[in-house]
């Protein structure tokens, strides 16, 4: 029989590769599905959101400029680190969502597999979204895709880990940086994911995790002039409409909330949602106005 004192974990935000408390100093109680207290999570303020956007913006150059191959390696490393902390995430997901151990294991395994899947896509997405275009003139016409920039992500409220990974991984796989607002009821797996990201070669600021009231943090992200896109996965219908109106101000890309089975194969939609297409016209040198001279 051990007489050790229990060591409670202080959950903190993950912003710019560091683990700050909320600037406001506030926390809120996180409970399991039966209402038992689990931990206190930081209750982020608008200023935390602003700081996270600054960190994300700073990271855009390095992350979008990294080679796709390198990004794939880093994402794969995330999967490796998660594998090592599998038991912790199984326990957190089971408590947060009220799942049996077997079901929680299935969720975490699926989430790890999803990192691997998206890691493989980093250097392939360009082939399916870009290419040469047929044009009626003496030009080579080539389209290629580029990341949108800073993406604010409202993580799904119900699926605290698989859903979370399913919205973060596609956004960063293509070179965006993200500010994630974790599930309001079940933020602990998201905050723990920050600890994994901090130890898996993901540059600071590429992923920033905030916990708190979605309805409090999201409006300032939606209206923020330096956020390029917003994923409304975790917003209910009323909030989503309000956020979409705020986001229109600087023509943010908006991904509307939709019913998603997080366990199903995701497809490429969440990657292509946050890509911009650049098209280049290059003269072929041919004198003919149409067709090829070869």
């Amino acid at each position: 029989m051990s007489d050790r004192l229990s060591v409670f974990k202080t959950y903190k935000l993950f912003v710019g590769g560091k683990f700050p408390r909320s600037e406001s100093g506030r926390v809120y109680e996180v409970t399991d599905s039966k209402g038992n207290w689990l931990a206190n999570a930081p209750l982020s303020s608008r200023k935390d959101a602003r700081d996270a956007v600054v960190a994300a913006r700073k990271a855009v150059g390095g992350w979008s400029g990294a080679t796709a191959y390198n990004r794939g390696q880093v994402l794969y490393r995330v999967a490796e680190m998660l594998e090592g902390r599998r038991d912790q995430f199984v326990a957190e997901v089971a408590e947060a969502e009220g799942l049996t151990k077997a079901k929680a294991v299935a969720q975490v395994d699926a989430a790890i597999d999803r990192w691997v899947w998206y890691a493989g896509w980093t250097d392939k997405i360009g082939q399916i979204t870009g290419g040469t275009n047929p044009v009626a003139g003496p030009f080579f016409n080539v389209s290629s895709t580029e990341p949108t920039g800073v993406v604010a992500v409202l993580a799904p409220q119900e699926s605290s880990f698989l859903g979370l990974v399913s919205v973060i991984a596609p956004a960063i796989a293509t070179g965006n940086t993200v500010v994630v607002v974790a599930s309001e009821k079940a933020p602990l797996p998201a905050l723990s994911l920050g600890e994994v990201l901090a130890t898996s070669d993901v540059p600071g600021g590429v992923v920033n995790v905030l916990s708190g009231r979605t309805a409090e943090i999201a409006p300032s992200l939606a209206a923020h002039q330096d956020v390029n896109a917003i994923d409304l996965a975790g917003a209910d219908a009323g909030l989503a409409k309000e956020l979409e109106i705020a986001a229109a101000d600087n023509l943010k890309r908006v991904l509307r909330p939709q019913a998603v089975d997080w366990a199903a194969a995701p497809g490429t939609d969440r990657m292509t949602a946050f890509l911009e297409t650049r098209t280049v016209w290059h003269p072929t040198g041919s004198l003919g106005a149409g067709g090829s001279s070869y």
Partner: protein
Amino acid sequence: MPTTVPAHGNDAAGRLKELADATASDSALRRFLHGLPGVDAVGLEARAASLGTRSIKTTAKAYAIDLAISMIDLTTLEGADTPGKVRALAAKAANPDPTDRTTPRTAAVCVYPDMVATAKAVLAGTDVKVASVATAFPAGRAALPVKLADTRDAIEAGADEIDMVIDRGAFLAGRYMDVLEEIRAVKAECGDKARLKVIFETGELSTYDNIRRASWIGMLAGADFIKTSTGKVAVNATPANTLLMLEAVRDFRALTGVQVGVKPAGGIRTTKDAIKFLVLVNETVGEDWLDNTWFRFGASSLLNDLLMQRQKLSTGRYSGPDYVTVD
């Protein structure tokens, strides 16, 4: 005020005479400078840090932002400066936020002497001053005639203000009189055509006591402004060394009735930092210095942050670097 009180602070009339004596000879000056009270480094830093914790919000913040913008010496001091860059910077100083004409102008632009004419041409008809660094900036390692020629060039090109560097080598070697006389010579060159700012490069002076001594040398020699740094070394303006210089100008005015301005320069990049400095000014020397005649910020990227904060206050939305110019 819970700040350092100099030993010679009370009996101003008697002390004035002593001041004239202070610069009479090398040894008298040394005696005077070494007779200044020592700086309580821990107390100074604690005081500067505690003044940095004030929460300035809403209308007070809006006022502080506009005041800070109006106090900026918008600076570009790079070897790579082109006439085009200087023109762009001058245009920005005259009209910092083209989307909001209520934005105040900056106090001045600060450039190298050869760029003065370029800046002056853009700023003709505005009240934005042109400041020029001179005297072999930033090292100051040149002979006096070269430094004076440098100063003369800048003034002839139309500079309204001259930012000179002191000879840190002479200062650190203890040749205070050389430093004083050099400042006097440059001051004479400026005459009534240009205000003189004296840069101490506090990051190279090693101790707070040295910063206090340098401040007094500058003021005794007739500086219109005392300025912390060139922006070219690792440690630039800090709240503590600026507080120390503010105390020096306060004491100097109390002693002689002469008011001297202060300019922290380098490393001030955010609105939050700028507001901390304004709090220091208000709490140390009071409203008499809260004006761009008496207080300046030497900065470049600070202006963008101030403009973004200003946009946030006027629209309610956080702004971003896409909405200000890239300099």
